[in-house]
């Protein structure tokens, strides 16, 4: 107990950092659920592809840590752009291949769920076998820095050096901590405004509320669904870069555990609720850290999921419990 209080600030900050990543990934689950009432289990792979895109940018540019600030910012922005593009692209591909036809045929939700799980495995394995894939097209040697050790951890050569900014309660908050938490909140606000104020956002809300009525009112349902996947993918791409800045490595199956946690965060905050996703992420990240501190790291998942059960017992719709369709305009 005293350990928790003595290190309260440190546990809080690192918990919020982890929670920010959970929250951004959770947005993808929440948006798709809000619009289609469907859990996109392949979303974790969307994130994973984004993380590799960011890693590959740093491999290609080969920037050493401690470069001049404009260079560092340029590389990070490029990595962010690459991660968002790839994640967004994979999300769109997923919608096209794994969902579109099923949605058109109005297939049972369970069919789409299985399709998503299958797509998740396929995407993860493709990344895990990328050295073989490169071999088939005869580029194994050319692409070696990108595909070697395909089943091991791949390191993000972070151009930004971690530096302490200020000390609170015995913990030195680093620049990376601040960047991650602030970016997550900013992106959250931007997305919230996008859904509230733009035409596409209004379309998303309309389809979430009643897709048939929305179609009658002239909303292009297919286009809105695509936009939803794209926005979720872009958020996952941003989450991928933030994750790499903090944890430094990714691997072909890294999406699985993160996906489970992000999905939990989405449910915790109220699935279908955009603000709830980030809140759920923060709460989950903090719960994991406090739980670890109280009774040991091996209990972190027990504590986190116990919290989920307790919250759902009292608030079955999650913390904010408001669906995407009913968000006030």
């Amino acid at each position: 107990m005293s350990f928790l209080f003595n290190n309260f600030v440190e546990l809080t900050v690192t918990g919020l950092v982890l929670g920010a990543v959970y929250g951004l990934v959770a947005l993808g689950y929440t948006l798709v659920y809000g619009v289609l009432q469907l859990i996109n289990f392949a979303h974790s792979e969307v994130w994973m592809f984004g993380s590799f895109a960011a890693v590959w940018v740093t491999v290609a540019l080969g920037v050493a840590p401690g470069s001049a600030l404009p260079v560092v910012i340029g590389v990070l922005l490029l990595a962010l752009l690459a991660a968002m593009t790839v994640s967004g692209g994979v999300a769109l591909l997923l919608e096209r291949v794994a969902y579109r036809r099923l949605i058109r045929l109005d297939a049972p939700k369970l069919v789409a769920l299985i399709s998503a799980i299958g797509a998740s495995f396929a995407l993860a394995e493709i990344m895990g076998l990328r050295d073989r894939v490169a071999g088939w097209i005869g580029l194994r040697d050319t692409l070696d820095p990108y595909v070697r050790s395909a089943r091991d951890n791949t390191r993000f050569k972070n151009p930004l050096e971690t530096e302490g900014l200020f000390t609170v309660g015995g913990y030195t908050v680093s620049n990376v901590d601040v960047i991650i938490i602030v970016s997550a909140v900013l992106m959250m606000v931007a997305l919230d405004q996008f859904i509230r104020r733009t035409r596409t956002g209004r379309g998303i809300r309309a389809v979430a509320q009643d897709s048939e009525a929305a179609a009658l009112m002239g909303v292009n349902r297919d286009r809105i669904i695509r936009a939803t996947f794209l926005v979720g993918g872009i958020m996952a791409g941003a989450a991928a870069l933030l994750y790499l800045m903090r944890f430094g490595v990714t691997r072909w199956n890294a999406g699985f555990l993160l996906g489970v946690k992000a999905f939990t965060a989405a449910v915790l905050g109220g699935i279908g609720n955009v603000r709830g996703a980030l809140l759920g992420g923060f709460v989950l990240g903090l719960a994991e850290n406090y739980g670890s501190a109280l009774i040991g790291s091996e209990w972190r998942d027990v504590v986190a999921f116990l919290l989920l059960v307790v919250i759902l017992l009292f608030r079955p719709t999650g913390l904010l419990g408001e669906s995407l369709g009913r968000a006030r305009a």
Partner: protein
Amino acid sequence: MRFSVKTGAPLLALALALSACGTSGGDDEEASSGGGEAGTCEDVAIGYFGALTGSAANLGINIRNGVKLAVDQFNDENADCQVSLEEYDSAGDPNQATGLATQAIGDDSVIGIVGPAFSGESDTAGPIFAEGGLPTISASATNPDLSTNGWDTFHRVLGNDASQGPAAATYIADVLESEKVFVVDDASAYGAGLAEIVEESAGDSVVGTDTIQTGQTDFSATVTAIRSSGADSVFFGGYYAEAGLLVQQMRGAGVEATFVVADGVKDPGFIEAAGDAADGTIITCPCLPPEESQDFYSAFEEAFGAAPATYSAEAFDAANVFLQGILEGNTDRESLLEWVNDYSGEGITKAITFDEDGEPENISVWAYKVENGEIVADQEIETN
């Protein structure tokens, strides 16, 4: 290593550091008379049993090459006694191992097996070898329980995990002179077992413990615990994937404590995951640095175009125990098993004798150090 999680690039990067006048492990050390039995080794083979394909292939290939070098050298020196090498590729899979073991038993020319390479496959194939009376010497399986099954055919030439733990504790206490040790484990049978042994051996100097989960990527709570304990060294029992992330996050949070790990981390994958944070890490391993024996090192490099890697030298020793026995005229399984049980001789890694359970009587555990992104030999650790 208890079981394999290896996929990494070949462990080629071992730097030349120490030099020593290794013996060649040749066939004249034990032999008093050799050539007299010539002509009796028609149709005699020894086998290599372990992964040559699959995700753990690199580790198995290191071992197979050690065996192959021993057999080739033997055949060059003994023109009238040619021994062939049979390869049993288990892919490191305990389920495939049983069928292959039965196949090996069925081939009467195979009278000795170097392997099985990993503990999991040793566990499933062991009873079959015992049943068939086929002597085995493993160069890499370290699960302590393997020798307690009553298989009289089982032998190994390296110390098991019960010797590695105390050695790591000795290094922490005597070489690092650390008075505050923090012990972390990954809850796996291998990692938790080792961590427990280190914890017992380190006694009062343990200032804290924590358990993480395999597959976990965020260790912030563990790092906080390490920092607030004021530890000057951290022992981690587990595999290289988590080890890389843990040390990277420790350094990121400004924890300077020396990071000490065991053979499950002796892999380039650790350096890939940890980057610069890996520097200064101490890795214990019951394996001899291949460059300790110069003759072996250069012969191996010439034969395979790459430096010997983890457990190549141990495999070379294991194969030579069989080959010397064959030269002495032990050309059936029964007499070769007796030969191995009574064996006493100098290998390139250590003086080799087996106790009645098939465990080596001389154990050496080495400390390796990560320097500039490469795993190099540091020193041998005094055991017992």
